[in-house]
């Protein structure tokens, strides 16, 4: 089947599903998930095939170009994996609507088109398609989302329009927008235009990946989006930013086109700046995630921090950096989607997102708990989950280049992530069950299934990261980079080797020992949460007993006074409004004599000027 047919099917499915959903929500949602799974499988089966198709002229001489290279295949499969899993997850969600299905289909079409694109214009067109549909999708469920989604609108507009400018600048200077041809021409381009193009693309990549300083939209949009859409937003759509970033740093090798700039620690100045933005984003994301009270806001900031890792790794480049960054894309997609899904499952059953209103759900929703647990272990980069391997590779690159401050940021993010991922774990699943949650059941099967698949994949690539890295080696080989040496169980890097199977065995043995000790010990007695009193008074509000409420208060106090980046957009909007008020008084007065005077003045000035 032709590649453009795939995109066409996905596009045509949108209105059909919309009308189908008018008759039956259930059938339409099931059909939607079938289509998404089909698209995922189709893309997955194209492994190793390299071909391109161009069709459909957009404007004179410019066609849409799609294709399969190892890069497209890798990103396309990851994104479609997340979207198809979320599509299955949605079947049993409560708030269904035809409009959501229409927009979701468009989001999916846009995501496929963007990741399978072979030129910058196709990329930006499909990316923008998925962006506007996701924007409207975000506001459909929650009232609060209205204010937050606006931030996403502006930030993505800033990103998209800088990219659009760059695309046409490239088209004008080089006469082509194809990745490979642009990469060729960039080598001989003037220095100023190289920097211009790189900066404009960088803005787009950072804005969409949700990295500092354009991360401000993530907290609001990811947390107030419909619960079933957050996994796609965080797991899939931010990864298109990573895709563009990879094209910038590896396909158009930024290290070689900027070789005339001074280099620090073995990487050129432009990449160094990018790496610092990634580093800052790790720190900001981690600190803010620790301070969040809302589960989804917390995961949103963890996305900021992980996007920081990806930016940092890709900017560092080199063998370990590039491969580590690419693998982190996969790991974070799996983990954040699993986290958002498990939280969506909890919210589906309990109806709240505040951590202090939950607790003790481990006994009620064990599989959801397991999915969450595995995901956070992976996000925190603890072996034996797949998140460790990618972080380990990134550290290798940092050590190799000798960049202590960036390495500090990376370690800080890793340690900090223990703190923030632990909070929902204890708050939601551990501790004592709230009286009102006595009758909560495990999530329905269609929710369990996608979560389990993502969890199993995380574990699988944790035990055998060499399997994932062998794909990534092919991508790196395709772009002309150096590959990592692998054996079945071992990754060989600069400072040593990582034998994942051995470590997993050690963990397993440790687990068994701990389990035996647990069995030998005295049996724990279950105490009811309300079975207590304070200072002679009985309390009836279960929330106040919850230790997650202001859990990291000292830490919180430490960072309370830190300058916040989040309000620059709001201030900008006030400034535009003020400017508007000024312009109105100047040029649009209430009475007509004002207009006439301004017009006459313009006429005279224009004549005097042009004469």
């Amino acid at each position: 089947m032709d590649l453009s047919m795939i995109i066409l099917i996905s596009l045509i499915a949108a209105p059909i599903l919309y009308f189908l959903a008018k008759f039956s929500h259930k059938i339409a949602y099931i059909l939607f998930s079938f289509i998404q799974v089909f698209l995922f499988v189709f893309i997955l089966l194209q492994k190793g095939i390299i071909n391109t198709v161009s069709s459909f002229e957009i404007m004179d001489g410019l066609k849409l170009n799609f294709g399969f290279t190892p890069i497209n295949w890798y990103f396309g499969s990851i994104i479609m994996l997340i979207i198809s899993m979320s599509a299955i997850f949605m079947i049993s969600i409560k708030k269904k609507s035809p409009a959501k299905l229409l927009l979701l289909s468009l989001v999916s079409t846009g995501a496929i088109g963007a990741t399978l694109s072979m030129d910058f214009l196709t990329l930006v067109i499909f990316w923008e398609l998925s962006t506007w549909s996701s924007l409207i999708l975000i506001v459909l469920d929650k009232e609060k989302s209205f204010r937050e989604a606006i931030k996403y609108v502006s930030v993505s507009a800033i990103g998209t329009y800088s990219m659009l400018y760059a695309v046409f600048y490239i088209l004008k200077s080089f006469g082509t927008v194809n990745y490979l041809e642009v990469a060729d021409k960039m080598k001989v381009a003037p220095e100023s235009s190289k920097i211009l193009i790189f900066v404009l693309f960088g803005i787009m990549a950072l804005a969409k990946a949700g990295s500092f300083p354009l991360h401000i939209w993530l907290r609001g949009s990811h947390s107030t989006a419909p619960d079933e859409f957050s996994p796609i937003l965080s797991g899939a759509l931010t990864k298109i930013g990573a895709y563009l970033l990879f094209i910038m740093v590896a396909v158009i090798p930024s290290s070689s086109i900027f070789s005339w700039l001074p280099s620090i620690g073995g990487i050129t100045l432009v990449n160094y700046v990018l790496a610092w933005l990634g580093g800052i984003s790790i720190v900001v994301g981690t600190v803010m995630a620790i301070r969040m009270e809302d589960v989804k806001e917390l995961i949103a900031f963890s996305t900021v921090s992980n996007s920081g890792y990806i930016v940092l790794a890709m900017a560092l480049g080199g063998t370990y950096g590039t491969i580590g960054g690419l693998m982190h894309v996969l790991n974070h997609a799996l983990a954040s989607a699993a986290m958002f899904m498990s939280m969506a499952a909890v919210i589906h059953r309990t109806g709240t997102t505040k951590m202090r209103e939950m607790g003790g759900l481990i006994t009620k929703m064990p599989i959801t708990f397991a999915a969450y647990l595995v995901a956070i272990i992976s996000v925190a980069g603890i072996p034996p989950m797949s998140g460790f391997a990618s972080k380990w590779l990134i550290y290798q690159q940092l050590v190799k280049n000798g960049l202590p401050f960036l390495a500090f940021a990376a370690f800080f993010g890793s340690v900090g992530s223990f703190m923030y991922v632990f909070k929902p774990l204890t708050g939601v699943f551990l501790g004592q069950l709230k009286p009102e949650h006595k009758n909560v059941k495990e999530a329905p099967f269609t929710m369990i299934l996608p979560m389990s698949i993502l969890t199993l994949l995380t574990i699988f690539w944790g035990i055998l990261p060499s399997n994932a890295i062998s794909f990534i080696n092919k991508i790196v080989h395709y772009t002309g980079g150096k590959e990592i040496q692998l054996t079945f169980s071992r990754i060989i890097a600069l400072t040593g080797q990582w034998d994942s199977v051995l470590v997993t065995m050690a963990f397993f043995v440790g687990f068994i020992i701990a389990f035996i000790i647990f069995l030998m010990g005295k049996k724990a007695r279950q105490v009811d949460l309300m079975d207590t009193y304070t200072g002679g008074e009985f309390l009836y509000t279960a929330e106040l007993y919850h230790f997650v409420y202001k859990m990291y208060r000292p830490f919180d106090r430490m960072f309370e006074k830190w300058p916040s980046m989040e309000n620059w957009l709001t201030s900008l909007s006030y400034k535009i409004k003020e400017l508007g008020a000024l312009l109105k008084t100047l040029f649009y007065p209430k009475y007509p004599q004002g207009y006439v005077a301004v017009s006459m003045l313009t006429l005279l000035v224009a004549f005097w000027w042009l004469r």
Partner: protein
Amino acid sequence: MNPTWLIALPLGFAFLGIFAGKFSKAFLWIASLANAIISLFIFNGNGVTSYIIGGWIPPYGINLVVNDMTRVFLLAVNLIFLLALVATSAEILKKDEKMSVAFMLSLAAINGILLTGDLFNLFVFLEISAISAYIMAASGKEAISKFAALKYLILGSIASSFYLLGVIVVYASTGTLNMADAAAKVTSLNPNVLLAAGLLMVVGLGVETKLFPFNGWAPDVYANASGRGSTILASVFPIAMISAFIRVITFVINSGKLNELIIVLGITTAIIGEVLAFSQKRMKKMLAYSSIAQAGVILMLIGIGSSKAYIGASMLLLNNGFGKLLLFSVASQIALVAGSDHFENVTGVGRKSPLFTLLFGAGALTIVGMPLFFGFRSKLYVISATMDKSLWIPAVILITAAIEVTYYFRWIFNLVKADAKLSEKRSPVPFGLALAGLLAVLVVIAFGIVPEANLDFFNRIGDLSIQLSKTLMGGM
């Protein structure tokens, strides 16, 4: 088919309508339907044809000119006019029969503006269209619409006298009123005389095309006129007025300095329009400033004057026509449902009747230029054309576009926002609005997704502007 019918038919019906009482409403429907069909016939063809009126050979007599640009614009104008009538058919206006006469008059004048090949004849049609526009502007329910119409009247009258002054200068110095003839003769004029004439005409046409700083009338008129009046003023009129601007300023006068001025003023218009639209609290006022900004971009492209710029400008014009048709008709209906079109009042209206959201959303998305919609394609041409001129212009255009995206999405979000205050009753979308709206949505989506080859008529407009030996355009 002889295009004279496009003018004669609505004009004749308008005359009859004065005496026909109730039937004048039916006349309006017949006239606009007939015009849409005739313009469809005219659209099928290419090349330049000149139609002599009154038996005098140009340049001595008046002629009507049909070329590739007019064909597209004629069809668009008559189609959008018909759709606008359908879309606002549920609205009940005061003195409905008399208003129908004004609408027919405006239809005749607009077709005349698009067709005529004579500078003075153009003035006459501009006056007729302006007079009917004043009546439309005053058709709103509240008293403020009368005040707005008065402002429009004052500015419009000054503008038409300026235009007439410009025509007089051209006539006095070249001895001709025929556009093609004048275009051939002005090249030998003293540049200062040409500049003076051109500037006077820019002011005259600038008021109608909403070029800054001559557009002070627009926000109040658009925001306060009746639903039908504002829809037609915002969607149909710009196409005709900008067509007149193209023919007079760039094809007849065609002075390089003037084009630079138009580029500068066009960009200023776009910036000011978007900034002011950003801070508006009323839906129709926001749409009015957005129309100003769109007009600014289009005029800037005309100032650039390359083939791509003309393609972009005509695409934007049509996109703006269909988009504003959707937006203004929906906004007027929402104002009726919600009591007013203030930001707080319209909150959540779209959730109660999703069709409002669909129509308004599609209109907004095509105006801001999102993929799948016509606006995106035109935006690509805009950036491409301006990039060839200077690196700064597309940067400014894209910054204003970012502002535009933000406020349009704020309004879309506002419509679908969950809000308990709204009454539980569903507010049904009138059938006419739904029908015309969905047709317009289909048009903007179709233009957005068909391959380039099917949009050949835009390329022909671009070619026309390039191979334009001036005599061809005016049709001697």
